């Protein structure tokens, strides 16, 4: 016999997965909008952000009901807590997508982005790594595969490095192209948001591991990696 709580947990799982797909698509569209300066697409991301926020509130409310009505314990409790936190992290990712989309919408058309600069910054790669991280984190949860969460932690280091490099590249570029200072600030903000997005995806992977293993991973990736290697 299927217990009531199992039906509720399955429903929560489905909702989180839908939220995941929505946020992924927001980031994917943002990437496309930035790289092709597509203001229409960027505007679409901004409009759809409302759906992300509404979805977050719906999941929050469902989690509250689930805890109040079913008093989950042990693995069920860990699952509910993990979904609650993942929901918040996904919503933050949605905010970053919207924030970046706003740069595209507000960008002055008269000053095109320097293609060579974008190449040097590896902006496209930065976006791709974020999307890959989000995709891997989703698979880790769906497959309950702890090895995949380790891949997420590794990728976060790549984002940190790309973001770090971008600062010096943009500083140098701004010195020689003063008319592009505003663009440089925007690009710097985009990198910072993407780097922060990586941190939130890392949080998602941590919550996933917490659900699997009940290990509190905060600030302790190395211990996990050592554990897994041994």
């Amino acid at each position, binding site marked *: 016999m299927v217990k009531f709580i199992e039906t509720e947990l399955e429903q929560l799982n489905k909702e989180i997965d839908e939220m995941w797909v929505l946020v992924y698509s927001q980031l994917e569209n943002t990437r496309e909008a930035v790289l092709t300066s597509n203001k229409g697409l960027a505007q679409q991301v901004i409009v759809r952000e409302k759906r992300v926020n509404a979805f977050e509130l719906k999941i929050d409310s469902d989690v509250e009901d689930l805890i109040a009505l079913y008093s989950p*314990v042990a*693995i069920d409790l860990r699952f509910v807590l993990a979904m609650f936190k993942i929901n918040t992290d996904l919503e933050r990712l949605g905010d970053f997508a919207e924030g970046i989309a706003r740069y595209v919408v507000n960008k002055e058309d008269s000053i095109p982005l320097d293609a060579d600069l974008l190449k040097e910054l590896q902006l496209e790669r930065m976006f791709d790594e974020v999307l890959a991280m989000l995709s891997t984190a989703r698979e880790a949860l769906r497959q309950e595969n702890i090895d995949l969460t380790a891949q997420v932690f590794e990728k976060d280091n790549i984002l940190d490095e790309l973001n770090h490099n971008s600062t010096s590249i943009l500083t140098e570029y701004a010195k020689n192209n003063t008319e592009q200072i505003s663009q440089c600030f925007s690009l710097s903000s985009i990198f910072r948001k993407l780097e922060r997005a990586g941190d939130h995806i890392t949080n998602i992977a941590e919550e996933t591991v917490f659900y699997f293993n009940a290990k509190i991973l905060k600030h302790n990736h190395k211990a996990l990696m050592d554990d897994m290697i041994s």
Partner: protein
Amino acid sequence: MEIIKAQHVNFYYGSFHALKDISMEIEEKSVVAFIGPSGCGKSTFLRLFNRMNDLIPKTRLEGQILINGQDIYGKNIQVDQLRKEVGMVFQRPNPFPKSIYENVAYGLKVNGIKNQDVIEERVVESLKGAALWDEVKDKLKKSAYALSGGQQQRLCIARAMAVSPQILLMDEPASALDPISTAKIEELIRELKKQVTIVIVTHNMQQASRVSDKTAFFYMGEMVEYGRTKDIFTNPEKEATQNYITGRFG
């Protein structure tokens, strides 16, 4: 420091092997909850701590149960003295057909205390300790049967506490009570823990998680898992424990 120590305990009802090689230690002034499905042996194990099973014919115990280092099934043990040290509260309140005052004073009188002032002091102290004093102070001479179920149960706790036991055994003490009375009993357990060690059998998972420091899960006569309540209810080690507390058992 442990006050109760069970070593390789096996217990039989005739040929039925009810408890299988159970060893555990219970810390002084802690609350330990025994959980498990009906018939798993948790009440049987609890009732070994004050030799209540002695009253059941054709039973047999192997192994040792030590309280304060002393084998309570040893030859020199006086069972009535043991039960003064190890009090018990049952599922259904069982006050004596006497007044509220006499219910609490009874154990003291049986234990040879004759000084009425001492008895009165202990009765008041016990009723206050059981969080019942304010509700009964004006009707101490009335029958205990006039009290509500929750009040009767607290009276039974006051009666047990009057003789200053070291250990209090509780066999589903709130299962017949409404939520308010249950909450009072649970509050009381937290208070009493300052004075006594409490071992409680309960079918209510949330009650076990609320009141106990450690929890033992029993299944088919075996103690499957025993650990900190916080760990048992967030991250049990055994799959059987997890299946039971999440309601997926069987």
